[in-house]
């Protein structure tokens, strides 16, 4: 059983709990064990980087240092923001000796150090490149026959550090979902902004983004939007009322984590996968097929 | 008219060179008839001050063997240089440092420490070390200092000629004498041995194919050596190609490869580097791993390529920080 060090980040313990609830069993069933970092801390999210890069790096790198200390080769960061920030930190430390120095000094205080060698991986990356589609196909018990899925990647996992997929036209999730038997729609907005935190701060432009995505998905006849990011899921699932009120247009469409769809295909119950947490619930599989 | 005066002297050597002079047997008589031997510590009692008393350049030729590793040896080298018209470095130690020069890879402290503290048979709780001046109830026997570095004769005084070998052959010694006495001498600083590599006179020369490339090196410890075939063709390191001839390939006659005691040819600054270059260039592999694999057969390049030449060579130890 291959082992990865697992950095959940705050979302997967909070708003994005369903992501974790589906992620762990799915990994388990393909023979991957995630072992959660002891005493991990906030990645600093995208905001902190804007405030003070160095401090942000210190904060983020602590997690990587812990992982290194635990002797893990690679860290899995499912949340897009975490994934981006940790990767960014890794790059900064590599590119700037200055930052590297400061960071490691800071880490020393905590008896830690970071060599910069621990790669930060995204679940998609691991499913496609480490486990492979054949292995996944083999695990499918209930193919997602006829389920029309709009694959939505969001902005962060491929930009700017597109390590495992094409920056402009990512396809890993497409291929993954096809392997599960779903009908994957051509979704041109797959990397378009979901509104991010604007939905909370500046509703007008924020919700517009969300609205555009929902509208297009509906228009292309999607039964469900599959996402990889807790924030995206939150935005796409959370504001249907507001949006319909604002634009007088039906946009209700369930948004789920790709891992939940995997779980369903693997025959894990919706409950275990935390699907009940959706505000706009996803119809049971059979129903869609009809 | 008086015969030319000849002196023999030895410094840090093993005495093998003396044996060689002795082994000249009948040959040396021819020599001795023509000269007066004025100094030969091994052969006759005499007084240091007798030498001091001699006029400068009054000795025709001095054959000095052994490397220089202590103040007294240096002092004597200078004295004899002053007194002699020709000073001849006799044997590997005087010529290129010889085996004792392998010590230049290590520091004096390493040597003292092992000998008097770490050697398995030593019992020495208080870590007693020999003292340059030791005092016991007012008695103070003294010991001479050893240097950190072993040196060749010409690194201490000017040398006119060299007779190589560990030990040199009686034949070379005789030829040298003849040259000296007959006065038809090569240019100053010459080594009085053929200036061609050993392969030139090696009986196994023809047994080497023209396309020997190395995929590995065999060590005599674990290989049965073919008594007829060129050692390099057997994949055994032989210093012959980089070593002066003149020894009549004695070691090869004993079915062992040349270890290079005659030093390099006049055209070479560093015998070891040259041999290394030639061997490595002919390794077959083209990538690092393969090359390293091949080179496993040469675990000790310093001892292999610089067995007798470390003092003379331009390969030198990093002095600080540790040693």
């Amino acid at each position, binding site marked *: 059983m291959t082992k990865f060090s697992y950095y959940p980040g705050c979302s997967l313990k909070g708003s994005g709990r369903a992501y974790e609830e589906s992620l762990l069993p799915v990994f388990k069933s393909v023979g991957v064990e995630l072992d959660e970092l002891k005493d991990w801390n906030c990645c600093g999210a995208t905001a902190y980087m804007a405030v003070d890069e160095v401090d942000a790096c210190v904060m983020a790198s602590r997690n990587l240092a812990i992982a290194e200390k635990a002797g893990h080769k690679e860290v899995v960061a499912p949340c897009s923001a975490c994934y981006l920030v940790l990767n960014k930190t890794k790059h900064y430390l590599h590119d700037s000796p200055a930052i590297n120095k400061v960071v490691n000094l800071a880490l020393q205080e905590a008896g830690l150090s970071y060599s910069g060698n621990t790669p930060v991986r995204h679940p998609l990356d691991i499913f496609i490149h480490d486990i492979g589609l054949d292995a996944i196909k083999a695990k499918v018990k209930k193919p997602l026959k006829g389920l029309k899925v709009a694959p939505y990647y969001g902005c962060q996992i491929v930009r700017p550090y597109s390590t495992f997929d*094409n*920056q*402009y*036209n990512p396809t890993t999730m497409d291929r993954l979902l096809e392997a599960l038997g779903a009908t994957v729609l051509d979704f*041109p*907005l797959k990397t378009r902004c979901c509104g991010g935190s604007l939905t909370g701060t500046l509703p007008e432009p924020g919700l517009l983004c969300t609205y*555009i995505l929902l509208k*297009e998905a509906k228009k292309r006849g999607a039964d469900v939007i599959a996402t990889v990011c807790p924030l995206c899921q939150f935005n796409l699932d959370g504001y249907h009322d507001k949006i319909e009120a604002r634009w007088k247009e039906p946009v209700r469409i369930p948004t789920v984590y790709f891992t939940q769809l995997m779980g369903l295909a693997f025959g894990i119950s919706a409950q275990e996968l935390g699907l009940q947490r959706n505000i706009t619930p996803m119809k049971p599989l059979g129903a869609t097929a009809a | 008219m008086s015969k030319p005066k000849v002196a023999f002297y030895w410094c840090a050597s093993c005495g093998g060179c003396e044996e060689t002079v002795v082994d000249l047997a009948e040959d040396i008589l021819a020599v001795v008839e023509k000269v007066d031997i004025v100094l030969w510590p091994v052969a006759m009692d005499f007084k240091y001050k007798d030498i001091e008393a001699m006029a400068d350049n009054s000795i025709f030729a001095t054959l000095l063997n052994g490397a220089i590793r202590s103040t007294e040896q240096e002092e004597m080298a200078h004295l004899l240089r002053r007194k002699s018209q020709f000073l001849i470095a006799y044997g590997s130690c005087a010529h290129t440092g010889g085996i004792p020069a392998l010590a230049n890879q290590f520091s004096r402290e390493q040597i003292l420490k092992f000998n008097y503290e770490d050697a398995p048979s030593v019992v020495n709780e208080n870590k007693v070390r020999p003292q340059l001046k030791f005092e016991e109830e007012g008695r103070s026997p003294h010991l001479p200092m050893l240097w950190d570095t072993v040196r060749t004769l010409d690194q201490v005084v000017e040398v006119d000629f060299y007779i190589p070998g560990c030990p040199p052959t009686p034949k070379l010694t005789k030829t040298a004498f003849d040259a000296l006495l007959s006065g038809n001498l090569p240019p100053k600083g010459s080594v009085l041995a053929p*200036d*061609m*590599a*050993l*392969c*030139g006179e090696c009986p196994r*020369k*023809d047994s*080497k*194919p*023209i*396309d*020997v*490339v190395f995929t590995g090196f065999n060590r005599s410890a674990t290989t049965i050596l073919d008594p007829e075939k060129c050692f390099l063709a057997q994949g055994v390191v032989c210093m*012959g*190609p*980089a070593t002066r*001839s003149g020894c009549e390939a004695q070691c090869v006659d004993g079915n062992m490869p040349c270890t290079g005691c005659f030093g*390099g*040819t006049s*055209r*070479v*600054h560093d015998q070891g580097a*040259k*041999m290394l*270059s*030639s061997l490595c*260039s*002919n390794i077959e592999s083209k990538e690092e791993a393969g090359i390293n694999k091949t080179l496993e057969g040469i675990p000790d390049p310093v001892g292999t390529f610089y067995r007798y030449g470390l003092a003379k060579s331009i390969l030198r130890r990093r002095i600080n920080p540790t040693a």
Partner: protein
Amino acid sequence: MSVKQNGKEEVRIGFYVCHCGHNIAAMVDCPEVAKYIETLPGVVLSRDYKYMCSEPGQDLVQQDIREYKLNRVVVASCSPLLHEHTFRSATEAGGLNPFFFHMVNIREHNSWVHTDRKEATEKAKGLAHAAIQRVAHHKALETKRVEINPAVLVVGGGIAGIHAAMTLANAGKKVYLVEREPSIGGHMAKFDKTFPTLDCAACILTPKMSEVGCHPNITLWTYSEVTKVDGFVGNFTIQVKRKPRYIDPDLCTGCQECIPSCVFKEPKFSDEFNEGLGKRKPVFISFPQATPQVVVIDPEVCLNFKRGKNPDGSAIVSDKCKKTCVDACGDKKAIDFTQKDIVEEIKVGNIIVATGFKTFDAERTPQYGYGKHKNVYTALEIERLVNASGPTGGDVIMRDGKTPKSIGIIHCVGSRDYKTNKWCSRVCCMYSMKLAHLLKEHTDAEIYSFYIDMRTPGKGYEEFYNKMLEEGVHFVRGRVGEVTDWAFTPEEEGKLVIRVEDTLAGYVRRIPVDMVVLATGLEPQADAQDVRRLFNMSCGSEGFFLERHPKLAPVNTFSDGIYLAGCCQGPKDIPDTVAQAGAAAAEALVLIDRGYIEQEPNTAFILDEECSGCKSCLPLCPYTAITYQEDRKKAVINEALCKGCGTCVGACPSGSIVQNLFDDDEIFSEIAGVMAYE
């Protein structure tokens, strides 16, 4: 330390340090260097001078040699690769053997790369000191003359190759022109018009092509590739593999009867020449003006090859086919399914490499949807689309059968982009505007041209740009973000939406169009690396072949006798290409007409007395220049075969091999020299 004397004569060195205007003087204190060198033993005089390579500079050297009885000359200036020859000649003119000269590189290796004047000056002193010690060991040498074989090989039959070949042939030189495709013509043959004059490419190219085809001095081998290059300047031995076209060119009259008579009634195979927009049959001729006018049979699709080919390329003849083509050919009997690879071996003295370029693969920029949205085209496709002899006979009909009402042309696709190619492809701005003009002409559609910067350096180019503005092409300044079929407004429905930040207007625009044209950039050929090795050339970091000097030797390579022409050396338009091809031809002519070249006498030789015959050097020589003489039991170097790498010298265990110009003494004294100056 004392200067070792060379033989008996006393060494008298003259030293010159060049200011090179400010190039050196700005960073190196030349007078101080001269002053320091003057103090060294053996140095008779030491001068600093503004431009040593200038006429007066060289005269100075010559006078001094005579006046001060100099027998060694050292010049500290630029790289020896640049001016060593100049100063050797000056030394010779002064009455000395040219190899009593040595050069110190204090410009490329010093003044241009350092920032601290003190350090740079010290470095200059050190290097000069080394040269002074080295030159004392120099020996008089005779340069080796090598006869030049007057024949020339031209690789690549594009406009560059064609022009170079013609130039040489017209000068009466034998030329072998080798082209990989069935016809010469290259990219230019695919173009419709050429900017800025808009004269038809075919009209100006085809006459040259047929001239080449029938020129008595040119041996044209199409559908062929160079497989082996041996030898060196003046005497190359080349192997050319001629792929079987299953037609005997001598018997084929070019009547093309075979094509209609093919068992395939309709063309059904993708047509490479038309960028896959059109179709062709198994037996075909690339395009009407193809040279030679000889059809080709494509073994991949011809029924007669259904049972495949023998390793040698000949057909395992099958009766799957009625062979109507053979009947059609009748008693000409030009069709021969048993043809196999032919390997020709030729000897030439010079080589011109004109292997051209490859256009950027638009699928590498998925955001522009090429391959995803069918109405997205590459520029080259449009060239064929608007071409009267193209697949649509010149009508602009899109893949969906419609004629576009609005067209967007996106510049710099795969150029000036850190994610793909960093360089500017030089021709895209111009050909984009050309296409804008042609498309407008053919369709009268609205044309939007999206550019980053408009680059129009060239005669009549800027004027052409203004003409386009007048013609009403909409120029939008900004790099396009994406081309998407996602419609946000009703009017966008069913269209391709181009999202771009208009950096002049300062906001993001969504412009819906029917057709998108990608102005793809120029890249090195896919096999550039192999070709580079084949001819022992270098590539720049971007992969184009590297010229010897960007300014002073733009068509030479680092291998003497091999020259570059056209886009294989870097993107350029047709006029520049032709000019460069002419230059390359001229370079070759220089050698041919002189009849010989003088080679560096840096060969190695064995000291016969000293060689012990240890045989260590024998396996080392890649040119088998070293042999073992069994009778004498010694190794011997054949000077004619020795290329002067010096590997055997570095490896001779008894120091019995010597290399001219790079003698042990010379290098050791150089080391001593650089170390002598603190």
